[in-house]
């Protein structure tokens, strides 16, 4: 597990130094604040989907949940609802969405891909329909604005609010995964679902919990993105974000086959994805190449990871055989 983090950390440090060397303003406080902000936003989504991926599932609806929450928040403000109440309701709604996904997958036995793909379509459609597809903003909610997108000043350096959300989420997630029996069960379930069930683990309940966590964090991201951008386009906000979240989780060491993953890895991977975009812009590489570069880096990262894992395994087997002789 530790080795996964080393690989991605090496990649992060390499790109970081590379960019800092070739672009002077890269290390400016302003740029670092932005990098931390965007990385935190992506990491929160990534941690959510990591839970689902550890169980061997997938969640394609993250971007649409983000869009739905951001749209409904704007709508609630427009309708004169109490904004704090709206925040609580929307986080509750996200939990509900996760619960529905979990129930459909475990009780009705539908495939996660299908359930969340339909979610992707349904929530996007509802967002557009409920808002008449109007671009909206978040007027008169300054307190929430500073909560979700404010800055905590450390001298002249402003730590962006999403970072604090990420820290809380990451610590809770890491404790859950590594320090509780539930976390152990979750890995066991991802590695071998039948085996886990036969040894008495309530696999259904665990899976539901994973989807609830994922949708909840998507909902939270929705609020953070909403206030970061001060604007929502119901047809566009959050579109394709699930793919970035999944990419962060996979690059961070989660296996789509389930049973593997670390929170720290996901956070660093999310930072790598944002860092890549940042350095592409700063180094003046054509923005049209951006997707290609991100795709190639993720592919190379995951491929290197897989190859090294195999080499290590072979070496271990060799050592065991030699020892026996």
């Amino acid at each position, binding site marked *: 597990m530790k*080795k996964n983090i*080393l*690989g*991605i950390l*090496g*990649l992060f440090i*390499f*790109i970081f130094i*590379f960019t800092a060397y070739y*672009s002077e*303003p*890269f290390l*400016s406080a*302003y*740029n670092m604040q*932005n990098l931390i902000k*965007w990385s935190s936003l992506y990491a929160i989504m990534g941690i959510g989907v990591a839970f689902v991926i550890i169980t061997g599932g997938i969640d394609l609806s993250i971007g649409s949940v983000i869009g739905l929450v951001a749209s409904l928040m704007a709508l609630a403000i427009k309708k004169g609802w109490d904004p704090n109440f709206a925040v609580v309701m929307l986080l509750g709604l996200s939990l509900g969405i996760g619960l529905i996904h979990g129930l459909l997958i475990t009780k009705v036995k539908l495939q996660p891909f299908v359930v969340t793909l339909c979610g992707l379509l349904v929530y996007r459609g509802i967002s*557009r329909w409920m808002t008449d*597809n*109007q*671009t909206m*903003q*978040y007027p008169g909610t300054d307190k929430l604005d500073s909560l979700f997108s404010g800055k905590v000043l450390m001298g002249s350096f402003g730590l962006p609010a999403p970072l604090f959300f990420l820290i809380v989420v990451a610590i809770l997630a890491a404790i859950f995964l590594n320090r509780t029996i539930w976390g152990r069960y979750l890995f066991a379930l991802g590695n071998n679902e039948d085996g886990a069930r036969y040894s008495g683990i309530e696999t259904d309940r665990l899976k539901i919990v994973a989807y609830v966590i994922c949708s909840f964090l998507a909902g939270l991201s929705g609020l953070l*993105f909403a206030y*970061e*951008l*001060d*604007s*929502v*386009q119901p*047809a*566009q*906000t959050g*579109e*394709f974000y699930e793919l970035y979240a999944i990419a962060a989780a996979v690059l961070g060491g989660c296996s789509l086959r389930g049973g593997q993953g670390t929170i720290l890895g996901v956070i660093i991977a999310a930072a790598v994805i944002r860092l890549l*975009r*940042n350095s*592409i*812009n*700063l*180094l*003046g*590489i*054509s*923005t*049209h*190449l*951006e*997707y290609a*570069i991100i795709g*190639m*880096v993720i592919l*190379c*990262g995951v*491929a*290197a*990871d897989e*190859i*090294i894992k195999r*080499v290590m395994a072979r070496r271990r087997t060799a050592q065991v055989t030699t020892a026996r002789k």
Partner: protein
Amino acid sequence: MIKKLTMMAAAAAVFAAGCGKPSDGDGATEGGGAKPKHKIAYVTNGIDPFWDLCAAGVKQAENELGGVECEIHFPPKGLADQKSILETLLTKGIKGIAVSPIDADGQTKFLNEVASETVLITHDADAPKSNRQVYVGTDNYKAGRALGQLVKEAIPDGGEVMIFVGRLEQLNARQRRQGVIDELLDRPHQVLGQVKFDEVAKVFKGDKYTVLDTRTDNFVMDTAKSNAEDAITKHKDLACMVGLFAYNPPRCLAAIREAGKLGQIKVCGFDEDDDLLQAIKDGHAQGTISQQPWKYGYNSVKVLKAILDGDTSVIPANKFIDVGFKVVTSKNIEAFWSEKRKMAALGAKKD
């Protein structure tokens, strides 16, 4: 360790591939010894052939005016990308930025932050409440009225007209649509900035012309086409289809062609899609209103350069520089198309 090295090698390879080619806007070479060039950036609201034409104007201005070095950015996915691009530009210490804001109201606060760091102007779409220095754009209401004139020429005896557009959330789309409706119903001219908008779902009956409900497609190409098909199916007496965004008229033409009603249902459009230009040439479409996108790019660079050189006289009192529009019909199609081809080639050129 091996793993780390492998990863580094992989990343280095990708970066080398990326760095080998200079970016779209960074091609300009440093003027040796002369006055340092102003570094400015042109930021669009997305990726579209329209923006390539604007980029052509930027490059043209960069070459002709001298003294400026331009970079051009196309945010691939909406507002979040546009914001992080602008942040990066500030990080780089850019001297001037021309941006087409995606949501003027929501972005005002951020645009003011940008404006406090650098010279900021808007193009294509305005953010009137922000501290931008000036707006380079078109009077879309007037352009809409001109489009209405084209419809009148296409069906002088009157008839049913239907409008197709990507989104009506955008101010320019609403202004264009209102211009068309007002012209067809012979209403008095409205002033840009105070235009009153009619309901979308309503049908408007004038003496000669009936404007049916407006269909939107959210930039989904197949929806744009099926909207046109459904309109032909639903309205047997449809006389003219009006497409307000570049891709709408070609979708209308495709639907008309497949319905076997080419020439029977007239088409009037906006912008300068090649399919539409071909149809104008062939007599299947009446004409189009071109904003001459390259003028956006050209004028944005020109204004930014002037402001950076200390000449603020380029900023009019109302902070609006109208680049105007061109009415293209079978009479001037050849000359217009060859100019467009020239600009498209320049815009697509990797330097």
